[in-house]
């Protein structure tokens, strides 16, 4: 009897709570008004607009004066070409968006620029280490490749998934070139450590493309002998361009 009455009471309470539209608990004083969040869908156009924001951000970061001012002669032309590539991808994305009656997006991804983009540039500007330029380039290209790879899992239209992978593949190639410019030759292909046990840059860090945050150490050495680590995440629900 106790069991059945308990279950009945619980069910009744839940159903009663669901059916009521008014608050059932008395409140003293002012109660804040709850504003329901807008119901936004992650559509293929949203993903393409976000991709535009990421490509714009990559081009802006690689052509920022903090980068160009300290890039070595050899790497400067390569990084400039990479930046131009990102700008050219905008046209590819523009065509894909227009074909779906979407609205193009020409700004950088403000949330991710604030979350880590500007931090990375500020660290490079304060450290003034030419090696940071290639480290940032590798991180940015890895991030863009991972973004497209991730977007495949969110894209509804199969043909568009292939377009995403094509664009991501170009960033992957640039990432491999940047990694080779840091740690060249076949000795740089596989993950390895130096004599002090510090991980070296690997051109092929894993068999499958990773979607975890891209980590890059930038800027000056601090008082405890370490450098700042910047974590770069692919766009998520709060940084998509709806």
């Amino acid at each position: 009897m106790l069991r059945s009455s308990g279950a009945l009471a619980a069910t009744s309470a839940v159903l009663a709570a669901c059916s009521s539209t008014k608050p059932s608990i008395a409140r003293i004083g002012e109660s804040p008004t709850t504003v329901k969040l807008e119901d936004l869908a992650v559509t293929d156009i949203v993903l393409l607009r976000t991709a535009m924001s990421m490509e714009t951000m990559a081009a802006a970061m690689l052509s920022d004066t903090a980068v160009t001012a300290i890039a070595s002669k050899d790497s400067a032309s390569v990084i400039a070409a990479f930046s131009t590539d990102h700008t050219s991808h905008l046209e590819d994305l523009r065509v894909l968006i227009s074909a779906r009656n979407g609205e193009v997006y020409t700004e950088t991804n403000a949330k991710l620029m604030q979350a880590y983009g500007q931090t990375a540039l500020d660290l490079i500007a304060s450290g003034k280490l030419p090696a940071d330029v290639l480290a940032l380039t590798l991180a940015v290209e890895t991030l863009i490749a991972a973004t497209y790879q991730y977007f495949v899992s969110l894209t509804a239209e199969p043909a568009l998934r292939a377009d995403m992978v094509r664009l991501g593949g170009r960033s992957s190639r640039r990432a491999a070139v940047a990694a080779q410019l840091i740690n060249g030759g076949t000795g740089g292909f596989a993950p390895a450590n130096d004599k002090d046990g510090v991980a070296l840059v690997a051109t092929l860090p894993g068999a499958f493309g990773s979607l975890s945050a891209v980590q890059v150490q930038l800027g000056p050495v601090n008082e405890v002998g370490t450098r700042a680590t910047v974590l770069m995440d692919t766009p998520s629900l709060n940084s998509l361009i709806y």
Partner: protein
Amino acid sequence: MSMTTRRRLIASLLAGGAVVAAAPLFAGHASAAEAGAPPHRDAADNEALNACLDRESRMVATYRKAIVGLTENDLIAMTLILDHHIAYAHALKGYLAVEAITPSSAPLASPTGSLTSIARQLATLEDQTATIHTNTIGTIKGLDAATLLASIVTVEARHAAALELIAGASPIAAVGN
């Protein structure tokens, strides 16, 4: 029955009742979210995925030939890429499970000699393999298989660019511009 035990029983009954009552509500939301979403798997994709498996199996056979005679870092690097292709074949085979065919083990080429002399040929094969997988992504419906192939293409693009550099291409040419 002691007071404490009785209270516990009532509390657990209340909690259990709430879960039972709430379950259909959550289930309703879940099914609404899934409606209209792309399928995770589609049996119609199996033929195209088996073609990808076949390609990866042949890449494995090609790299097995390529590593013969290589030494030191070159051997380590090419064995790493060989291992990647073995992993891709295993992943596709695992995905297809009982629907997997027995793939060909015929190499796509017979690369022999120093790595510098065979790297461009291998880079071309990597490019072609990535293109096959990318085109497959554009035709299959299942999201899980598309996601798997995307994670493979991302790294095969790196293979291609790195091998182009080893073959003597400039950094900008190795990107494919």
